[in-house]
């Protein structure tokens, strides 16, 4: 059974929705800035669910007042990596939280081949499952 037709990966916020428009992204970032979270832009071509740390595009942006600067960075990143996954992450530095409070995808490759499950039979006929991204069969930079 195909549970996710179109193979769109679903990570972070809003990932079941259609792609956010720039206006919607701006509104989300505004919310992050209002809470004094540091926003950064990250990209990857290996979107495995366990691949937590994506590459930072530029520096995390501290002390910003307006989302325009971040949107500028997002667009720069889209220009540099048009066929990568790009996400916006808002880091909450408040004591006791100290982790990302928001994370959503703002750019996807045109074709997302999705993931496959491989099963390995081990002792006692137990099964071990591995989630495998079809895209990572190719070397880095040629995946999408």
């Amino acid at each position, binding site marked *: 059974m195909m549970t996710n037709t179109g193979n769109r990966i679903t990570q972070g916020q809003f990932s079941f929705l259609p792609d956010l428009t720039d206006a919607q992204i701006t509104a989300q970032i505004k919310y992050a800035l209002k809470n004094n979270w540091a926003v950064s832009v990250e990209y990857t071509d290996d979107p495995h669910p366990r691949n937590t740390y994506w590459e930072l595009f*530029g*520096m995390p*942006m501290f*002390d*910003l*007042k*307006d*989302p*325009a*600067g*971040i949107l*500028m*960075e997002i667009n720069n990143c889209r220009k540099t990596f048009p066929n990568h996954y790009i996400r916006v992450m808002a880091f909450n530095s408040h004591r006791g939280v100290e982790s990302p409070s928001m994370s959503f995808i703002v750019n996807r490759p045109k074709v997302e081949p999705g993931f496959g499950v491989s099963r390995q039979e081990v002792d006692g006929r137990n099964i071990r499952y591995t989630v495998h991204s079809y895209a990572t069969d190719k070397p880095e930079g040629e995946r999408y």
Partner: protein
Amino acid sequence: MGDNRKVQAAGADEAQVDLEAEFKASNIQEVLDKLDRELIGLMPVKTRIREIAALLLVDRLRRKFELSSETPTLHMCFTGNPGTGKTTVAMRMGEILKRLGYVREGHLVTVTRDDLVGQYIGHTAPKTKEVIKKAMGGVLFIDEAYYLYKPENERDYGAESIEILLQIMENNRDDLVVILAGYKDKMEKFFQSNPGMRSRIAHHIDFPDYTAGELLHIAKLMLERQNYRFSAEGEAAFTEYLKLRMQQPHFSNARSVRNALDRARLRQANRLFADAGRKLGKADLMTIEAEDVLASRIFGAGSGAV
């Protein structure tokens, strides 16, 4: 601007809007009044701010009729002698532009060369961009902007910073307003070597020197803010002091006045301390007497800068 003009739509659209109602709704008058009240003199500056306010207001009305026009460039250059209020006005500019709906946040980011220009190859661009990103939605105030360009050193990274600024000033007009400030002759030289910068700045505002009367007014305002006042003789003495001080070299307008007042307060405290036996009232603690001013070295024969 305050009269009851109506704006008529072009073409078939006969709808009318009330300029005055719009003006009142924007609370601009309040900001302009505050400017008038708190900043003495500076007529050319106030006139230009009024003009900009009018333009932005009319622009907003035009948009209601879908008469599109490009966003006006509001990048500015403030030139003038030391202490003529360039920084003070820049601080207000953020608030004014926010009220007018031209910028979204209206905060002011003040930078100098050090914040924009890096120390090694590849350091300048990220540094400048970071500052620009912080200023977005508000006003970027570059103090002593002429330092950005050092013609005597061709390997200076200032030019790279200017390049990025120019690009942003052109492409992100909606996102931030850049204000350059500096002394007139030096800024003139700066623009000569950067013609692109001059043409991208629509408003060149020159801050005139203050007259003696204006300076006295400023002095009184400063004292009032700190809960001090001149006695009648004290005021006369300070008028005299200003007359002498203005002829001295390195006179820097309002800044010199502030320094002179600080020294007068020092002497006042000293005087009160000297006759410690006396009981002091509130008025004694507030009043700057003539002798506090007259003790200045300027009145003596020896001409120190103080």
